[in-house]
């Protein structure tokens, strides 16, 4: 036993690889939130009047709301007046026309993160709308996408160039008053990604954005809106890393997906924000509202997420299965180590006929991590022949961590078939022993077992993401055998 704990000491906690701060002049609004700040953000973005009104309405609603307390997480109260709500890299204001004009320091940052933006962009075949502290810096593969008629641009650009689309769909999935953090986001969001796939179009490449929180004390409020028109298909990738920082940073993003008749959206996330140090100091608060609306018949929305970062993760990518025969999927791996807390899961709201949903959730807790699955499967009266299968498994590593399951199942139609299964276990000594007696080091053995545990989710990820996710898992759990 003694050697085991020494091993643990020895293997424990690799430092966060992506912890560095790029020294860029930021044009930052002083901390605080009031209507003037919102007007300022809106003015800086040169937004139309209706959007400003929309923001203000959200803000006024937000003022009447209380921060929710139900999640199984603990944190110090957040001072919303201490956050700066707008920060743009200064050197960007002149507007780079091409990559050559982009601040080299920014490019360097992406280089360090391994984002395929510069040289790798051709090889990787990935169009990147890289978000650096709320303002999009560079966009690639625009022409190729334009050829297919796909609109993929920073949100602020979409507001300028496609206001009719934005106006038609913005806030129709996550209304401004949906919840505390969505209302806050609606009031102060600075940028994000916008994507529109025209009718009967298969998006020629996988779309991806990288978010990165940089300037200190700047909450990041992203807004993503993806619309898949009739008969279209898109696969969207989102990945995040953030620099090391001592103060907790708030991130309250909103993602809205809309799938019309026969359309399909596949949304994959690898989230690796700074989780705080091994004593639980610092780290990102990730309070995100993600929701997809299967608005049309035979539409499909699939969420895949790998959550390894953030001090606190609080997100429930959901599907509203409105169209007949629509389908929702949720595949998730959530890892908490050290003092990380995660309260994550999904909601599947069955409204249309013959709708089906699948939920596969894998939670891994190590160290002092607390990992909760919270999910809702609701079958409304109109949802004939609804079908749901839910499986949530938890893996415990170490005796100080916690794994919790809170599934809500509400069924109002007798033709529904709902199944929920959950199990909790630890990596057994037998499994470890078996691997080790075949000459596999304990670390590799744990890696293998964990990867096996997560396989069902990883196979849903696009190839390059799957590889990254496996590596990430290995790094996050290094030394967590216990």
């Amino acid at each position: 036993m003694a050697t085991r704990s020494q091993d643990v000491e020895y293997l424990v906690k690799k430092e966060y690889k992506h912890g560095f701060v790029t020294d860029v002049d930021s044009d930052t609004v002083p901390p605080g939130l009031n209507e003037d700040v919102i007007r300022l953000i809106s003015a800086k973005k040169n937004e139309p009047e209706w959007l400003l009104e929309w923001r203000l309405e959200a803000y006024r609603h937000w003022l009447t709301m209380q921060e929710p307390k139900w999640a199984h997480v603990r944190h110090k109260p957040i001072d919303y007046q201490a956050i700066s709500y707008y920060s743009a890299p200064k050197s960007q204001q002149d507007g780079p026309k091409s990559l050559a004009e982009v601040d080299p320091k920014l490019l360097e940052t992406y280089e360090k993160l391994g984002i395929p933006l510069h040289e790798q962009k051709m090889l990787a075949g990935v169009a990147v709308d890289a978000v650096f502290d709320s303002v999009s810096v560079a966009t690639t593969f625009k022409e190729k996408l334009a050829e297919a008629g796909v609109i993929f641009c920073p949100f602020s650009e979409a507001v300028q160039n496609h206001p009719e689309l934005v106006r038609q769909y913005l806030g129709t999935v996550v209304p401004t008053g949906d919840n505390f953090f969505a209302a806050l986001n609606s009031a102060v969001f600075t940028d994000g990604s916008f994507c529109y796939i025209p009718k009967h179009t298969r998006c020629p490449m996988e779309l991806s954005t990288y978010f990165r929180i940089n300037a200190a004390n700047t909450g990041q409020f992203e807004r993503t809106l993806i619309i898949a028109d009739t008969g279209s298909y898109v696969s969207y990738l989102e990945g995040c890393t953030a620099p090391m920082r001592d103060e907790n940073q708030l991130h309250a993003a909103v993602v809205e997906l809309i799938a019309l008749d026969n359309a399909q959206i596949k949304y994959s996330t690898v989230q690796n924000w700074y989780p705080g140090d091994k004593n639980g100091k610092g780290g990102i608060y990730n309070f995100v509202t993600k929701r997809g609306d299967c608005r049309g018949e035979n539409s499909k929305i699939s969420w895949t997420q790998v959550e390894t970062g953030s001090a606190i993760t609080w997100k429930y990518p959901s599907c509203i299965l409105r169209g007949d025969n629509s389908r929702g999927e949720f595949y998730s791996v959530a890892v908490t180590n050290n003092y990380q807390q995660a309260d994550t899961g999904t909601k599947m709201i069955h409204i249309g006929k013959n709708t089906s949903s699948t939920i596969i959730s894998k939670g891994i807790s190590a160290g002092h991590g607390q990992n909760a699955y919270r999910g809702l499967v609701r079958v409304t009266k109109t949802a004939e022949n609804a079908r749901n299968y839910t499986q949530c498994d938890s893996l415990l590593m170490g005796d100080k961590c916690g794994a919790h399951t809170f599934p809500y199942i509400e069924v109002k139609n007798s033709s529904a078939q709902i199944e929920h299964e959950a199990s909790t276990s630890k990596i057994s000594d037998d499994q470890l022993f078996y691997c080790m007696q075949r000459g596999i080091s304990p670390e590799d053995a744990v890696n293998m077992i964990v990867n096996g545990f997560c396989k069902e989710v990883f196979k849903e990820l696009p190839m390059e993401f799957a590889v990254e996710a496996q590596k990430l898992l290995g790094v996050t759990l290094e030394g967590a055998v216990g």
Partner: protein
Amino acid sequence: MTSTAVEYYLSAFTQQKGKFIAPWFSDQRRAALDSFQQNGFPALRQENWKYTDVRSITKRNFILTEKGNGSVPKNQINSIRFNELDCHELIFINGHFSSKNSRIGNLPDGVILESLVIACDIHPDMLQKHLGNNANYTIGAFTALNTAFLHDGAMVYIPDDTVLEKPICIFYLSTETKHSFITHPRNLLILGRNAQATVIESYIGIENADYFTNSVTEAVIRAGAKLEHYKIQQESEQSYHIGNFMAQQEKDSRLESHSVSLGGKLVRNDITSNLAQPGASVTLNGLYMARHRQHVDNHTLINHLEPHTKSEEYYRGVLDDHARGVFNGKVIVHENAQKTDAQQSNANLLLSDNAEADTKPELEIYADDVKCSHGATVGQLDKQMLFYLRSRAIEEDKARSLLTYAFAEDVINRIKFVPIRKRLEDLVIGRLPDAALIREFAA
């Protein structure tokens, strides 16, 4: 709105004050009432009451009953008895002990089996030592009200190393009265080391009787003791029933709880077991059948506090017409409780498009060397099974009845005690159409 309801109970308390039993209990009464006054009735926004709206209870003014209120003909009482079973019977009518109808047989040395009112006179020390120790009134308005208005109920005390062979049947019978009334039955079950007992709590309402039963049962199961507890709820379909069962379990003790809920308009059953010492184990089985506009809510909470504790849970619901069934099973494995084994299963059968099932199996785990799992399903009768029966010339509604019974029987079959199993089988079959046919098949 609820504040007027709170006021109502506060003033009732002031009026009743002089009539309460056990003066030594008055401090606890007062404290419970204060807690009730502070917290009021639960609202839907409270997580524990998310699916159950108690406003239909709080907007009514139920009165407390006097002894002797409501007469029951002899044959009616005889019909509720377990005639096929040799047992000790305690019968309460509208919340008051009826000694002339009760039959308590010979008891082994040291065993106490009395109504609370009588026990107050004969065994005040024993009561004073145990009453209220495990029923935490701060957790809810209804337990607080029960504590504040505590009047009658059953006291069971089994000394160390004693096995009570005959089961104890406690009947709470509610009848039709002029005013709708409230009763606060309170049961205290204490099993000494290595003691064994079987206790059956049966709540029965005369058809059309309109009342509110707010019961609390607290059990202490000492090291090595074993309690088999049955709760059979057949309240009238106009009535409200809120029942709270709380058990404290010591080393290697065992609790088997079977809860069958058939009656009531609005029913809430809470079962809590604290596995407070190593080796303790608990089995919770439950069946809830609801029809018309019945609402049945089952909440269970199992606290694994120490290593090597085990829990098993198996609940099934059959929901027809506009009925709504709620299941919330929570298992908490505390930091210390390594080697915990916790299994839970809940299945719901929806027979009508207007019925609703809400289920929430919860796991909170703070230890790592554990084996925990839960499963929940909501569905309808298997089409293939229906087809099979139809292909053998059984009419569709008959086939449905048979399959429904087969689904419910899964819980009943877990009851090892034959006379009770038979009686429950009979009750469940009686609830279904084509009872005669099912009996033929089941035989």
